[in-house]
């Protein structure tokens, strides 16, 4: 139990660290948020008033402690552009991004891992090499380009879906699915490709180990050796890769929401950056960091549960 507490502590530490880094970087930006909100034509007195209201004139340590306090109470400040609390804006956009991420993850796991197993089974023979080659290409295609191509083919030429926009799940579940499936595919493609390669390499590595020989010498055939012995051993390193995949998916979502004009967190972020709505950027960076840290914490926990060799407390 102590181990999990320690990991939890490390997780909180990471979030705090990220928070501090974002706070400090936004501290050193030239130009005041008050100024960017009012525009350069504003009166000196207006500027002073707003600065005071936003607490910009307070000393650094007070602003820092206020920031940290806000962090624990979930109060991330107010967006300059929308004049709405940041957390409200984010929560509003979150369902789109989360649906997108979950669909992409499902595609990655359901397509990537089985294909990886098949490709490992055929090893150096034609199907194996073919899958490897395709996955190599899949990793090289930028997701926003495949997004554009998908829009062109399915939206413009075939007219199966109407590109852009999002219908909430509660209104029209099928419509929501239709509006999300193409972007999910675009996000998933590179990750599918990389998980195929990881699975294949991991399995082929395991196939070289001695326990495979022992299993064969018991009279098991290759398929049951693969399923009963190799697969579980091979999946352990892949679990750690899932953390990376999670980051890839969120990164992919930021770009792809732009391509498909989906009203998600990614689009909000890009808008916030281009309009220099810094409290919003700050808040979203933290939010994404938090999500990813939590995912990694769970991956860590799964890891220790699955592998009996990892004695609690040991870092792998």
């Amino acid at each position: 139990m102590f181990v999990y507490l320690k990991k939890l502590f490390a997780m909180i530490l990471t979030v705090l660290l990220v928070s501090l880094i974002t706070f400090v970087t936004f501290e050193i930006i030239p130009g005041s948020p008050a100024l960017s909100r009012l525009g350069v034509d504003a009166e000196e007195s207006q500027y002073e008033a707003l600065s005071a209201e936003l607490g910009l004139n307070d000393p650094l340590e007070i602003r820092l402690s206020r920031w940290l306090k806000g962090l624990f109470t979930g109060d991330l400040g107010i967006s300059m552009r929308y004049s709405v609390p940041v957390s409200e804006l984010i929560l509003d956009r979150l369902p789109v991004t989360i649906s997108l991420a979950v669909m992409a993850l499902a595609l990655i796991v359901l397509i990537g891992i089985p294909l990886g197993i098949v490709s490992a089974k055929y090893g150096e023979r034609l199907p194996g090499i073919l899958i490897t080659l395709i996955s190599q290409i899949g990793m090289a295609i930028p997701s926003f380009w495949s997004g554009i191509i998908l829009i062109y083919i399915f939206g413009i030429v075939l007219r199966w879906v109407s590109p852009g926009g999002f219908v909430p799940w509660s209104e029209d579940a099928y419509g929501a699915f239709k509006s999300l499936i193409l972007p999910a595919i675009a996000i998933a493609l590179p990750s599918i490709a990389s998980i195929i390669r990881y699975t294949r390499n991991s399995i082929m590595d395991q196939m070289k180990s001695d326990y495979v020989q022992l299993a064969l010498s018991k009279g098991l055939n290759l398929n049951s050796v693969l399923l009963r012995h190799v697969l579980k051993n091979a999946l352990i390193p892949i679990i750690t890769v899932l953390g990376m995949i999670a980051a890839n998916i969120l990164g992919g979502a930021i770009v792809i929401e732009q391509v498909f004009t989906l009203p998600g967190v990614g689009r909000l972020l890009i808008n916030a950056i281009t309009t220099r709505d810094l409290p919003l950027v700050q808040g979203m960076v933290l939010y994404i960091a938090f999500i990813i840290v939590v995912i990694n914490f769970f991956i860590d926990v799964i890891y220790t549960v699955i592998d009996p060799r990892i004695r609690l407390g040991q870092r792998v």
Partner: protein
Amino acid sequence: MKRGILEIHDLRKHYRLRRTRLLKKPGSIKALNGVSLSISKGESFGLVGESGCGKSTTAYTIVGLLKPTEGRILFKGDDVTSLKRNQKREFRKKVQLIFQDTSGSLNPRGTVEWILREPLRAMGMQKREIKELILESMNLVGLDKDLLGRFPHELSGGQKQRVGIMNALILNPEVVIADEPISSLDVSIQAQILNLMNDLQERLSLTYLFISHDLNVVHYFCDRIAVMYLGEIVELSESEELYRSPLHPYTQSLLSAIPGETGHKLERIILEGDAPSPLNPPTGCFFHPRCFRRMAICSSVKPQMTEVTKDHFVSCHLY
């Protein structure tokens, strides 16, 4: 004990483990539990024991790769654990180590010549001198100078160990610690290396601390032998004497377990179980759970080292 060229006194090495429970004190691995020995100039001193008994830890601690938790290491009477920087360098030259794993101790990306040059350069030698010295020592260990440009993976096992030996000897040390120098070699090559080491000892008047798990080899090679069990020395004697009349039950079982020997009169003793973990060693005598002659006292009182016959020490309640 008389003054030796290398002495160690009550050497201890404990490793602290990571804390795994909030309220429980983290345990520690007791790799060495007070090892004392004295090696005289010119002798071959053997250290025997099974895996994990602390033989290698002893070697690494002497050459300074590990810091002892407690204890003193004396080289010619000077404590080397508290040496200053430049004195340490002098000491380094004088006490060298031959590694067990022939391929692991040679840098895979260095040619034989580069590998041999590194220690000399670290000692601040000139290029010319270095070249001469290398050629000279290649000759000494019976290697062709054509091999200088080769990489370790292009050498055979025996050649690699010769390079390893030369690498240790090139600084002209007085004491050479050999950590299982032949156990990773093929049988037909082992004899070559043993002969070479014997030959070099005579020519360069070396003192050896020879570490091995093989009692036969140690008996053949060494003048005196110390037997280790779980971080302690349990018996210490002149080599012939130990072989003829082993006192400690552990030594007796070790001797009897040597496969294929028909010469000795000992009945085969099969011990129970494995060596216990140094994480939580047994109480009393560490050997008692496996001992075939254990008595009531053994589980509670730790035996002391006693001299049973002249120069034959044993730590056992039987004597």
